[in-house]
């Protein structure tokens, strides 16, 4: 009956990694996501051409499998710019936007959701009515309004996405905290005299980290599509700066005679989103098999 006879389970990092990378690890999705992040960091070093370099003589070259040359593997656009190099350059915007937008909306939403869920009462009522209002506004309408106020660009994109997505985190965190705060160990922490900040950090946050991680991963894809949509509409990144959305916008005039110019960035967006969704699904199953509705 003493602790000595209790067998210690394997807390080792090795065992945890083994179980993590066992059957069902989404190698392809993880590979694509890691690849995108790596390209965002070292892009200029590996890209074959200057992404902004014009070469009007080689405009509208098709991809290599459609009769093009290996010098431009994914073809060129209307100004002779190398599409492959531009896609690599576009990863930077996607990664930066995804990182900051998810970090900011997640942090703001988590704090607000914790306050609403833990304190309840009028704080909860006000916050949840705000969330309802937020959810009733179409994101693009909000983007149009904000774009009128803000200078278009990377910052504006991050702000628009943060304003759109914080309410998601707030709602989910509130729900989690509502059930967590009824746990007996939370009541005992209050009895012990712990303040709200200690209770958040020690008893609530560790229990919602998994949920947040899953939500954030699933959102990478949405954020990338959102950025592309904003840039496509001219509310986000502006040409000649490069993002996948800008490439779509630039190429849409030539869709009939140069399909690859608009297809290639589209495929890049699709693959990245698909990878983030599949990876997020896997993460959800691994971290919390009970939670299927995220």
């Amino acid at each position, binding site marked *: *009956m*003493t*602790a*000595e006879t*209790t067998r*210690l*389970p394997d807390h080792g990092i090795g065992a945890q990694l083994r179980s993590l990378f066992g059957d069902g690890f989404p190698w392809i999705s993880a590979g694509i996501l890691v690849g995108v992040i790596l390209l965002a960091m070292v892009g200029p070093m590996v890209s074959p051409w200057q992404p902004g370099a014009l070469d009007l003589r080689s405009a509208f070259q098709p991809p290599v499998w459609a009769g093009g040359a290996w010098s431009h593997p994914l073809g060129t656009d209307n100004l002779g710019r190398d599409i492959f190099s531009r896609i690599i350059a576009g990863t930077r915007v996607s990664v930066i936007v995804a990182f900051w937008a998810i970090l900011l909306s997640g942090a703001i939403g988590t704090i607000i959701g914790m306050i609403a869920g833990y304190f309840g009462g009028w704080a909860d009522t006000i916050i949840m009515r705000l969330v309802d209002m937020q959810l009733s506004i179409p994101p693009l309408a909000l983007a149009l309004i904000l774009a009128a106020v803000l200078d278009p660009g990377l910052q504006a994109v991050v702000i628009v996405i943060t304003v759109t997505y914080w309410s998601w985190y707030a709602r989910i965190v509130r729900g989690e905290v509502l059930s967590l705060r009824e*746990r*007996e*160990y939370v*009541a*005992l*922490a*209050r*009895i*012990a*005299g*712990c*303040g709200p900040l*200690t209770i958040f950090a*020690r*008893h609530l946050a*560790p*229990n919602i980290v998994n949920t947040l991680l899953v939500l954030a991963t699933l959102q990478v894809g949405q954020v990338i599509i959102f950025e592309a949509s904003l840039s496509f509409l001219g509310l986000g990144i502006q040409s000649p700066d490069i993002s996948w959305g800008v490439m779509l916008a630039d190429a849409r005039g030539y869709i009939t005679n140069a399909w690859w110019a608009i297809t290639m960035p589209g495929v890049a967006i699709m693959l990245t989103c698909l990878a983030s969704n599949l990876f997020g699904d896997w993460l959800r199953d691994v971290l919390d098999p009970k939670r299927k509705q995220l």
Partner: protein
Amino acid sequence: MLLEARDLKKHYPTRNGVVKAVDGVSFTLEPGKTFALVGESGCGKSTMAKLMLLLERPTSGAVVYDGQEVTAMRGRALRRFRRDVQAVFQDPYASLNPRLRVGKIIAEPMMAQGDLDRGAIRKRVAEALDVVGLQPDAARLYPHEFSGGQRQRIAVARALAVRPKVVILDEPTSALDVSIRAQILNLLSDIQDEYGLSYLIIAHDLALVEHFSDVTGVMYLGNMVEQGPTASIFDTPSHPYTQALLASAPRPDPDHHLPTDVIIGEIGSALAVPSGCPFHPRCPKRFAPCDSENPERRATAPGTWARCHLLHGPDTAPGHPELHLSERTRS
């Protein structure tokens, strides 16, 4: 007196009306003594624990600790209350955060007090583990590495380590295996003797209370119906509800049969507390005034009182209860 409830009421407004979970309960807990609150599920005894622990604020009435009203406490007084009054809950699987090591769980109340350095806290953790009969190594392990009884020992160690004056025990043994219950109760008794603690124990198990508490209060639907020294309550219960509770407790006696007709139906709803005496719809001895007037307290023995019309009125009532009873059984 150390801890006192003064005419405590806790009403929860809901869509379907007001739930009167606790409706005017008073008692005092003396230093070094044990007060037991007993009653069926839904009688408001757990709400009482929450009120006494300042987890909920009373609708009216007051909780008084050492002469001071706890809802008015701020700063140092509140911190002292948070040290002096600790709790052990029913379910040792829910009351220990699974992500914290046992050492940290036990240290939490001391860390919240902020007056001890890490070395002193570690020493106290080891002491507390020793008092409850666990190895000092236990501090490095996680709760899931212990059995239910060991976990409850950890919960007791946690309550104890901060050197409280009162420990509120909310059904401390009802989630444990029968074989472990006596161990935990003996442990709690030893600790009480050694440290001069006061206990407020909340239980539905009468057998547990009989040998453990000095004073017992019986609750029914948010009301205290009878209160007094435990021996007096168990030997000469005056309230029909107390009598029924005692009669329905299983006894290790093969010739003893559980009475079948003493108490009628289920506990009523706190949403619609019956008029008059809250117990009257289930009472085998009800008569004329029971459904209109809630009886006042009446002394039945030294230090004991009960709230029942039988104690007020003349003993001419006996004819009536049978009447009521037979009417009911026919319908």
